[in-house]
């Protein structure tokens, strides 16, 4: 959505920005041109108006002069003047002064002395203030502007003839605000006309203004007045200003006419254009925005819809894909999108099918089964049974008959189980196992179902010319007793099935007590590793008595583990586990190092004690073992003959080739090799023939009751005889009473080992023991 808005916004903004830019540039250009034109026009108007102002003053002069002349032609006035009748002259002058708009009239004699002054009686007898005006009054029209008390007057000097020149009438017409306002109106100048006088050196002062508010001169106070049109800022508004010098009396303070041309006022007619332009721009913007919006929407709507569809597909919803009835690129995109979604949906279904189904049997797989069980639990199923059905001979069948037949066999098995356990949810748990989940079933029902399944599978699988016994084994885990989670139930079912595989009954319930795969074992192994790392294990040594000499000349090293919390952990609790979990090699490595080190210490003290260390089947699979033992021996300086390794027959059977090589290597070193627990399990004399064995240790089951049991005596005697014949030393384990010891001595057994002689002892105790009890009898 955001991206779509962004696109729409960007498009609209681009359009608007372009429009606005173009319009503003145009406006700026038009404004610049218009303004230049206006300035030019203003300069022209100012020049024209300045001349017009001068012309107006000339007209004023003519009007005043004409009036005064008419006045001067009055016979009575001439008479009064000629006769120096000042009273009459005064009244006539004042009367005429009013007519011509003069504020002051003077009669000046030919000698330049004021004879009559209408404004100031005391002026009579004084010299006329502007003699340069009087000087030329007879030659030409004489009129000029003068400044008196910061006021400006237009002075017209008219000669009086009676009939010869008898004097001059001086008319003062005030150039006041009213007159300038009148002139301004006549001029049609967009601006103002003012008169500025400079009474002192200080600066120009406004003597009169056409407009009260313009204030041209006041705003320019302190500046030089421009004699050519120039742009000035007057009260924040732009004016073209021109100062027009006027003809003036020499003795008067300077007076100029200041004409201002208001650019703002001149621009006013263009304001309508500006408003129209702004409206057009606004309309264009609005239309453009709407258009851009609509255009963008026609693009972004489908894009948004496709994006929404993509998000739905992401969430796994393949419905309601957008259909665009468009022939353009977006239409193609939408079509491709729909095709893609379709393909993705099909592929996902396929993947899900594969993920949750077994391809061979078309049954749900383990993952699906776990999910189903967890769903049932979540749905409130209070109890149930999980049946794990395995084929014990599956690996053999695959090896013998191949995978394709095995697959067909598994399909058949699945079908048979499905037929007899219709109420069960069936799944293929692993390659060799099926799981049947019976929700709501109790033990009885579980057993009934199990027996039906076993029945169904007991019939051999027949195909063409082969007939295969499947040998089913079935484990049962009950929900919720054996676990509430599907994975746990499955594991426990599997454990039970393994238990059934190893027993005579093909059916077993899960028994937590016998579960060799309890999770706590894993923690015990972790702790074992930690104990190894921190050397918390110790070796105890059980003495071996040489029967001939009645001396202890050897010991068997046995691992003891003092667990910080559990106390003494019995070897059977962790050694088997270590074998299962792959930790036995580390344990052996440690035992070898510790045993060899101890042996070398004894050897260094002159004690001739052979040390025997147990090896496991896995140890014999390690080809480097002879090398390592050799290295340990040389490090500790122990003669190889002082070390014996004890192996079981089972260990040799596991990987005979490697085991044989390892044993040969050890024998080559000179290390003694003893076969432990001889006589039980799968005794294979064939191996003995090839093994570089130096000693046989008769299992304690034959020795424990040796004193009383004639059969045992026979067996032991036979083994001793066999061993000796083959060149082996023979040791009897489990000697618990004097009778057995004596029997063994009588038989000719080489060594005896057991509680009667000594329990396994710490190395420190053993040192004393071996000497004290050297002559045990």
């Amino acid at each position: 959505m955001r991206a779509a808005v962004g696109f729409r916004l960007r498009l609209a903004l681009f359009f608007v920005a372009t429009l606005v830019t173009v319009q503003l540039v145009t406006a700026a250009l038009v404004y610049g041109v218009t303004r230049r034109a206006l300035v030019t026009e203003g300069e022209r108007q100012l020049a024209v108006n300045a001349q017009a102002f001068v012309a107006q003053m000339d007209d004023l002069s003519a009007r005043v002069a004409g009036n005064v002349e008419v006045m001067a032609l009055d016979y009575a006035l001439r008479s009064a003047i000629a006769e120096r009748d000042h009273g009459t002259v005064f009244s006539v002058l004042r009367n005429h002064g009013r007519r011509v708009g003069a504020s002051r009239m003077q009669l000046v004699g030919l000698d330049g002395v004021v004879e009559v002054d209408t404004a100031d009686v005391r002026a009579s007898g004084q010299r006329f203030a502007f003699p340069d005006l009087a000087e030329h009054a007879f030659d030409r029209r004489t009129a000029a502007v003068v400044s008196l008390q910061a006021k400006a007057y237009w002075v017209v000097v008219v000669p009086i003839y009676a009939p010869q020149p008898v004097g001059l009438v001086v008319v003062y017409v005030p150039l006041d605000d009213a007159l300038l306002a009148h002139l301004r109106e006549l001029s049609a100048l967009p601006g103002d006309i003012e008169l500025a006088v400079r009474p002192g050196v200080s600066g120009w002062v406004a003597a009169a203004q056409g407009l009260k508010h313009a204030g041209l001169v006041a705003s320019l106070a302190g500046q030089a007045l421009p004699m050519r049109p120039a742009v000035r800022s007057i009260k924040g508004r732009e004016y073209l200003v021109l100062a027009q010098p006027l003809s003036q009396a020499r003795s008067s303070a300077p007076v100029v006419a200041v004409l201002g041309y208001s650019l703002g006022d001149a621009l006013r007619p263009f304001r309508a254009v500006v408003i129209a332009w702004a409206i057009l721009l606004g309309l264009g913007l609005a239309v453009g925005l709407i258009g851009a919006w609509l255009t963008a929407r026609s693009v972004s709507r489908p894009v948004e819809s496709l994006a929404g569809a993509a998000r739905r597909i992401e969430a796994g919803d393949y419905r309601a894909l957008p259909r665009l009835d468009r022939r353009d690129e977006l239409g193609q995109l939408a079509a491709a999108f729909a095709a893609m979604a379709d393909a993705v949906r099909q592929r996902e279904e396929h993947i899900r099918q594969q993920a949750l189904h077994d391809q061979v049997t078309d049954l749900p797989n383990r993952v699906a089964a776990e999910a189903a069980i967890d769903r049932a639990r979540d749905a409130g199923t209070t109890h149930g049974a999980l049946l794990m059905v395995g084929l014990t001979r599956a690996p053999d069948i695959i090896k013998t008959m191949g995978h394709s037949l095995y697959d067909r066999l598994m399909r058949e098995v699945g079908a048979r189980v499905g037929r007899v356990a219709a109420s069960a949810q069936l799944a293929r748990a692993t390659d060799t196992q099926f799981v049947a989940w019976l929700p709501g079933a109790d033990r009885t029902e579980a057993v009934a179902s199990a027996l039906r399944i076993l029945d169904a599978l007991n019939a051999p699988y027949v195909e063409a010319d082969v007939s295969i016994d499947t040998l089913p084994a079935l484990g049962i885990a009950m929900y919720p007793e054996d676990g509430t989670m599907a994975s746990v139930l499955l594991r426990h079912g599997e454990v039970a099935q393994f238990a059934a595989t190893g027993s005579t009954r093909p059916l077993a319930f899960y028994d937590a007590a016998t579960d060799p795969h309890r999770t706590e074992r894993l923690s015990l192994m972790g702790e074992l590793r930690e104990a190894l790392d921190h050397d918390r294990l110790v070796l105890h040594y059980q003495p071996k008595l040489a029967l001939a000499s009645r001396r202890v000349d050897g010991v068997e090293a046995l691992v003891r583990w003092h667990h910080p919390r559990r106390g003494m952990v019995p070897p059977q609790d962790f050694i088997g586990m270590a074998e299962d979990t792959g930790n036995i090699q580390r344990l052996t490595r440690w035992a070898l190092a510790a045993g060899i080190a101890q042996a070398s210490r004894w050897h260094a003290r002159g004690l001739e004690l052979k040390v025997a260390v147990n090896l496991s089947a896995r140890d014999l699979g390690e080809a480097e073992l002879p090398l390592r033992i050799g290295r340990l021996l040389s490090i500790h300086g122990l003669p190889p003959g002082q070390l014996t390794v004890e192996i079981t027959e089972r260990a040799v059977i596991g990987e005979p080739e490697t085991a044989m090589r390892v044993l040969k290597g050890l024998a080559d070193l000179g290390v003694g090799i003893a076969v432990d627990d001889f006589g039980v399990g799968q005794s294979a004399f064939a191996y003995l023939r090839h093994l570089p064995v130096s000693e046989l240790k008769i299992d304690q089951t034959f020795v424990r009751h040796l004193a009383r049991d004639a059969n045992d005596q026979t067996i032991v005697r036979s083994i001793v005889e066999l061993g000796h014949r083959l060149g082996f030393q023979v040791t009897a384990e489990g000697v618990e009473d004097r009778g057995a010891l004596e029997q063994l001595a009588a038989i000719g057994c080489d060594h005896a080992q057991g509680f009667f002689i000594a329990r396994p002892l710490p190395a420190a105790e053993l040192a004393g023991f071996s000497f004290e009890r050297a002559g045990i009898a």
Partner: protein
Amino acid sequence: MRWRVMVAWLLAGSAGPLWAGQLVVRISDAGGHAVGDAVVMVTPATPASTPPVAPVTRYVDQRDETFIPYVQVVRPGDRVVFRNSDGTRHHVYSFSEAKAFEFLLRPGESSPPLALDKPGLVAVGCNIHDHMIAYLLVSPEQAQVTPSQGQVAFEHLPPGVYTVTVWHPQLRPGLAQPREIRTLGAGEEVQQVDFTLSLIPDPRGFADREHLDY
């Protein structure tokens, strides 16, 4: 020494017009044009005992709304008669100190003879026709009015010191009257006196005034 010679010379000159000098006065305006209607007066430093001249009657005619002559020199005691030769009335007047008067003259009518006793200038106007102006200069001295050539000559002047004064109706008011002092020695001496006058425009006639832009 020189003073004594001069006095002796003056005395000699006054003894009798044995030797007469001549003053030629030329009047021009600022533009160098000859000026007519100027009155040139020559006043000897030593008043000559001139024989009394009998008063004469002068005439100032009015024809075509013009006083003829424009400028006229009369001697004190002369009489002047204003004669209306036009078909209109004329209201002849003067406010001059030398002689103030006022006549209303019908067409063809003449004023009674008017005695001009006081030396001075009598400016004469017509109250009906402003452009009509005439001047009568009442002067006891030798005086001549310049013709349009602007030159007059005073002949047979005995040696002596003479003040030459010029008056003109258009002399700029307020200025001192132009004058020159010349000394004529014995013999046929001719001295030329040039005056350049600063004149105001001719106040006669509307045409002229309009020409002046008034």
